[in-house]
C-alpha cells in the first residue's frame, strides 16, 4: 500500500546516511524543526513538506504525485561557507536522483531542485549568525 509519509522518510534517509553531509552537519537530519532539547549551537539539516499535488487518473486512481520538500542546512557560523558547502552536498544527493521508494509503495520518477534557499538569521540571544542554505526539491513519483 502506498504511504506518502514513507516517501518523506526516504528523502530523509538519503540525507542522514551520507557521510559527507554528516561531517558538514553532525547534529543530524530533522523533520520540520530541530528538537528543543538539542545542544546549541549546531549544524543540522531540516526537511519539511512544502507543497504537494496529485495528478488524478481514471477510477479515482492517482497517475503521479509531485511533492515539494524544503531541504536546508542550518549552521551556526561566522561565515556562510559551511552552509553553502552543505547545500552543495544536498544538491549532489538529491538533484537528478531516482530515490528508492519501494518501502513507501511508490516508484520514483525524478527529483529536481525548483529553487534555491539562502538567508542568514541573527541569533537573538548571542547576536551570532545561523546560515540557512538549501533548496526546494520536487520528488515526482507514482504509487506502485
Amino acid at each position, binding site marked *: 500500500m502506498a504511504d506518502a509519509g514513507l516517501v518523506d522518510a526516504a528523502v530523509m534517509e538519503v540525507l542522514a546516511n551520507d557521510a559527507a553531509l554528516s561531517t558538514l552537519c553532525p547534529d543530524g537530519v530533522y523533520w520540520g524543526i530541530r528538537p528543543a532539547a538539542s545542544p546549541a549551537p549546531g549544524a543540522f539539516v531540516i526537511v*519539511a513538506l*512544502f507543497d504537494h499535488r496529485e495528478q488524478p487518473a481514471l477510477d479515482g486512481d492517482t497517475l503521479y504525485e509531485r511533492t515539494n520538500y524544503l531541504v536546508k542546512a542550518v549552521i551556526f557560523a561566522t561565515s556562510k561557507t559551511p552552509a553553502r558547502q552543505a547545500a552543495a552536498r544536498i544538491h549532489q544527493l538529491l538533484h537528478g536522483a531516482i530515490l528508492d521508494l519501494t518501502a513507501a509503495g511508490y516508484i520514483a520518477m525524478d527529483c529536481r531542485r525548483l529553487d534555491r534557499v539562502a*538567508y542568514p538569521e541573527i541569533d537573538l540571544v548571542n547576536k551570532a549568525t545561523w546560515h540557512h542554505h538549501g533548496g526546494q526539491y520536487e520528488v515526482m513519483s507514482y504509487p506502485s
Partner: protein
Amino acid sequence: MAAALRLTGVDELLAELQLLAPDLAAEVGPLQQSIANETAAAIRAAYPSVTGTLRNSVRVARESSTSPARVFTRIEVTAPYAHFVEFGTVTTTATPAFVPLTRIGRERFTDAVIARVRARGLVVGGDLR
C-alpha cells in the same frame, strides 16, 4: 568571444496567436487580476498574525507590458521577515504559504485561459505546467 542567441519572429507569432482569439487578451487581464487578488487573500489568511504587519504587506501589482498579448501581475510580500515565516528559523517551522498558493494561482489562471480558448473552438494540447 561572446555567444549570442537571436530569436526572430516571436512578435509575429504572438500577433498570429492573438488573431486566433482577438478578444481574449482583453478578457484575461481582469481575469489574472481577479485570481491574483484571490491568491493574495489566501496568502494573508495562511500567514500567522501577531501585529498584522505581515498580512498587510501582501500586495498585488499589475505590471506593464509592451505587448497587448501579454499580461503580468505581481504578488509581493514586503515584510522584511517574510522569508523567516515561509522557510522557518532555528526555532520555528516553515510556514509554506506564498510558494504553494502562488503555484495554485498560476495553475488556476492557466486553466481558466485554456477553458476560454477552448470555448472559442480552438484546441489546446500538451503539458502547460
